[in-house]
Each structure stands twice: as C-alpha cells, then as structure tokens.
C-alpha cells in the first residue's frame, strides 16, 4: 500500500502535458503552429529539395502554374520562385530567431533587475531604456548597418537585438514589480531564498506569458524589419531573402505580378503564424483557475 503510493507519486502529470492539453483546444494556435513548423521545414529542407536556384535566362518571367517544373513561376533571372521562397524562409527564420534570443537576453535581464531591485537600479536602467525608446529604431539600425563594410545577417540580427529590447524590458519590469509583492514570493523571502532563486525560479516563470506574446510580436517584427532592410538594399547581398525578391520584382509588378506577390504572401503568413502561436502559448500557459 505505502509502496504503491510512493510509486504513484513519481508519475505526476507534468506541466508540459497540461500545457498541451490546453493548446490542443486552441484551433488558431494550431494553425499558427502549422505555419511555423512549415517555415522551419522550408528552411531546413531548402538545400535538399532544391539545388541553389541558378539563373536560367531562357526561362525568365515564366508565369505561375504554367510549367510544373517551376510551379510558382520564375523571376527576372529565370530562377524558380518556389526555391527562392524556401531559401528566403531560411534567412527570415535565422534573423527572427537570432534577434529574439538577443532581445530576450537584453530585455528580460534589464527588466527583471530593474523590477526586482527597484530604487536606484530601477531608476538608472529605466532612464537608459527611456533614452533607447526615444531613438527611432529603424534609423538606428540603418546607421548601425552603414558602419559595417559587410552587412551579413549576423549584423542585422545584432542591430535588431540591440535596438528592440526596451519594450520587452518594460513589460518584464512591470511583471516583476507586481509579482514580487505576491505572497508566494514573500514566502520564499521569509524562507531565506536568494534573490537569484526568487527572480528566476519563482517570478520569471509566472511572468512569462506576456513576455512570450511580446517576443512573438518581436519575432514577426524582426522578419518584417529584415524584409524592409533588404527592400532598401541594406540586407546581406549574398543571401536570398523575401524582402530582396520583392525589391527586384517591384520594377516589373505590372507584367510579372507573381515575382513580388509570393514573397509578400510568405511574409504575411510568417508574421501571422508567429503571432497566432504566441497568443496560443500565452493562453495555454495561464494557470487554471478553480471555482
């Protein structure tokens, strides 16, 4: 009897399972997840499915759904649009993921320190954040990019990461401010738990839902920013990116609509997918209420 109980307690319901149970009910979230997973699939399988899209001038401006070897048509250089979009997903995902990792590090660290310690720490960090908020981000990124000879994706990621964190820091700070006064945090203080333990074991997991939402918005924003920068000609010149394809197609919109339309749709879906997924994760993360 006793032993049975001991065994049973090891098998508890894990948090992940509870999370998945709630997530399954969220159809929009599942839709978002499908988009995000297909993006990942596109990025991973690009080079296996398609050899590098070489220009084939004899096939320039093939309209979509005509020649099934190039289902989405070709661009002004005769490159397969479908392959271009697969390769573009790679750039977008890399920029998106890379920049949110940086954003998370900067934003959450600064926000949590300011919110938890308060007083002068808060004052200094938040005034710095305010200053960052007053600088137009795109302007700062452009200045930043123009400082470098070679504008690789890493530079773009870094530029977005360094300039995009203030919003996240503010959210994190406000979460920490309200959560540090909750009884369960005070209980750990009374127990003698260290500040690090309180901040990252007790406050951060409870502060995550709104942070996740902001992060997915930022992810979508990063993809858009990269597309915008490439559109302006500030992207990585050696890589294929959705923004860059749109720029190329811009001149021939009237005759070859597909060249800028398909990458546009790709951007739309990528942004939508991340936003839906973020919302769903936030909702499934909420603590179940009883009564």
């Amino acid at each position, binding site marked *: 009897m006793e032993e049975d109980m001991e065994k049973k307690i090891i098998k508890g319901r894990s948090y992940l399972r509870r999370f998945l149970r709630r997530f399954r009910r969220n159809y929009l979230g599942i839709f978002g997840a499908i988009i995000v997973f297909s993006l990942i699939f596109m990025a991973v399988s690009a080079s296996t499915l398609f050899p590098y899209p070489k220009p084939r001038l004899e096939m320039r401006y093939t309209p979509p759904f005509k020649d099934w070897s190039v289902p989405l048509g070709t661009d002004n250089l005769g490159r397969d649009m479908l392959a271009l979009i697969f390769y573009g997903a790679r750039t977008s995902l890399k920029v998106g993921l890379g920049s949110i990792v940086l954003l998370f590090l900067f934003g959450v660290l600064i926000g949590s320190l300011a919110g938890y310690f308060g007083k002068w720490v808060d004052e200094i960090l938040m005034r710095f954040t305010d200053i960052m908020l007053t600088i137009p981000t795109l302007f700062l990124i452009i200045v930043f990019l123009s400082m470098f000879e070679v504008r690789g994706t890493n530079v773009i990621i870094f530029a977005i990461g360094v300039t995009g964190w203030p919003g996240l820091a503010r959210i994190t700070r406000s979460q920490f401010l309200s959560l540090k006064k909750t009884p369960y945090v005070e209980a750990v203080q*009374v127990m003698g738990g260290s500040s690090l333990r309180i901040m990252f074991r007790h406050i951060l997991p409870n502060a995550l839902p709104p942070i996740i939402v902001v992060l997915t918005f930022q992810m979508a924003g990063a993809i858009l920013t990269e597309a915008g920068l490439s559109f302006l000609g500030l992207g990585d010149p050696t890589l294929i990116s959705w923004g860059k394809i749109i720029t190329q197609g811009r001149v021939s919109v009237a005759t070859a609509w597909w060249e800028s339309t398909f990458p546009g749709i790709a951007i739309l879906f990528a942004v939508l997918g991340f936003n839906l997924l973020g919302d769903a994760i936030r909702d499934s993360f909420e603590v179940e209420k009883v009564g």
Partner: protein
Amino acid sequence: MSYLLKVSQLKKYFPVKKYVFGLIPKKKGDIKAVDNVSFEIKPGECFGLVGETGSGKTTTARCIVLLEKPDSGKIEFEGQNILSMSRKDLKKVKRNIQMIFQDPYTSLNPRIPIGKSIGEPLELHTDMSSQEIRSEVVTMLKEVGLSPLHYYRYPAEFSGGQRQRISIARALILKPKLIVADEPVSSLDVSIKAKILNLMKLLQTKYNLSYLIISHEMSVIRFISHRIGVMYLGKIMEIADKRSLFENPMHPYTKGLISSIPLPDPERKMKTAPLKGTLPSPINPPSGCRFRTRCEYAKEICEKEVPQLIEVEDGHYVACHLLQCS
C-alpha cells in the same frame, strides 16, 4: 525568564509623499503603522495579536519575518537582535521562523508542484538529497492530512482548505521554533476553519511550536492563543492571558471589541453599538491616547499624555490613564 522572541520599541513608519506639480516628491507625513510596540513570546506559547484594519498588526508580523525593515527598535530571537545580524547568522535564524499567509490562493507558486513547494525550505537550509527531501515531504503531507498522491499536483487543483494545509506543511517542514501566521483562517469557510484551527493546535503541542497569530476575529484568537495583545492604531493597548483578557478586559477598547462580536445566540442580542465612530487617520493620529476619540471615558489627561503600558495585575498590562490613576 527566557523568551523565544522579544520585540522592543518597534517602530515602522511609512512615509506619505505628495508630489509638487506632480513631479517633485515632498514628504507629507508618516503613516505610523507600528509605534513603539513591545511584547515577548515564550517557547511553546501562542501569542495572538488582535485589532481592526489599520491597527498595525500585520506590519508588526512582517517586521518580525523581515519583510519590512523597521525604523527602530529591537527584535530579539533567542537573545540575539536579528536586525543587526550578519547574513550567515541570519540564515540560521530564518530557518527557525516561518510564516503562514492569509490567502491560500496566492501564497503558493502556481507553476510549481506542491511537493516541490513544501520541500523548498529543505533545499535552502539543508544538504539533503532530493530523495531524502521527497520522503520528508511525503511524511509532512500525511501529517497535515493530505495524501502522498498530491505530491506532483499543482495548487490550482486544491481547495482553499487544502491549500492552507499545504502552506502549513511548508512552514513546518524545517521544524521551526516560531511560526508567524497572518490571518491564517480568515478566508476559509466555517467547517474548514474548524479543521485548520484544530490542526494548528495539534501541531503546536506535538512540535512544541510557538505561534504569533494575527487575526481580526476575536473568537479565533480566543480559541488558539495563550496570551493576547490588543492593538489599536499602531500601539498595543492591552496584553494579558487569554482568560484574564476575555473575562476581565480592562481597556475600554478591548471591552468594546469583545462586546462587538455577534454572538451565535439569538437570546443574547446586542442592544447598542459598543463602539462609536471609526478608526481615525493613522497619518495624524489623535494626540495622547490614540483611542480617546472613540472612548466614552476620555478625560483631559488622555488628550495630553500618551498612556504607558503598565502591569496592572500579574501579567496583565494595560495602557490607559483610567487605570493608572487609581
């Protein structure tokens, strides 16, 4: 006489700021939440603090568990002042002072299984392995009337009464000497309240615990405490044994408080309200005796002098000019 906890001349003011042009902070005054409070708790004793909202009883408790930093005064635990202690010594003391919070719905981290929450104090203060911690937690779960099967459940899956049991288990797991409980049963239903109060009383005798219980409910305090302090606007008005406080209350405020309790007996109906008016503002409390604005016996001296807490009978302390003259 050795005391487990001795609080002397404890003071905690909260500054109230006014903003000039909405920008420049200017001090407007102080909320005198705790003003020169002294009392002591013996080992194995349950000390109850009663008072209305704003009497400073919760702030006093929060100062003792160091959630607030007192402005002045001493809090001695086993003879050492915990306000002037090194970090290392403090950790040893913290092990021996645990707290139970009022709201069982917010005092447990909703994202951590309750078994882990209960075991956390052991993680912090001992070098037990996770296996040992778990078996200790399982024993404690049984002790407070829960099942080991509950170990991996999350707080949301429990009712209010069960959560309060979890909080008690967490406070008890280190076998502390003092447990500070801030309104431990005031958000619970009648039948659950009875169970939790019985449990707390049982555990006290079993582990020879000392309690500091904060409550606004006189009947709860009467049931569980050995000695009781009555607070009003940041000051202690009367301290006495349970029996002598309830059977022979001396301070007019204590008398009013006791006769304000609605008795569960339709044949003993209240005729007039025992106390008139409401609590004055703690920013500008009345001069002299703070209770004088609601006291029917108030005299001239009450306005001028602050009455001191004086031992009127054996172990019965009262702060009132009426009793000190005679």
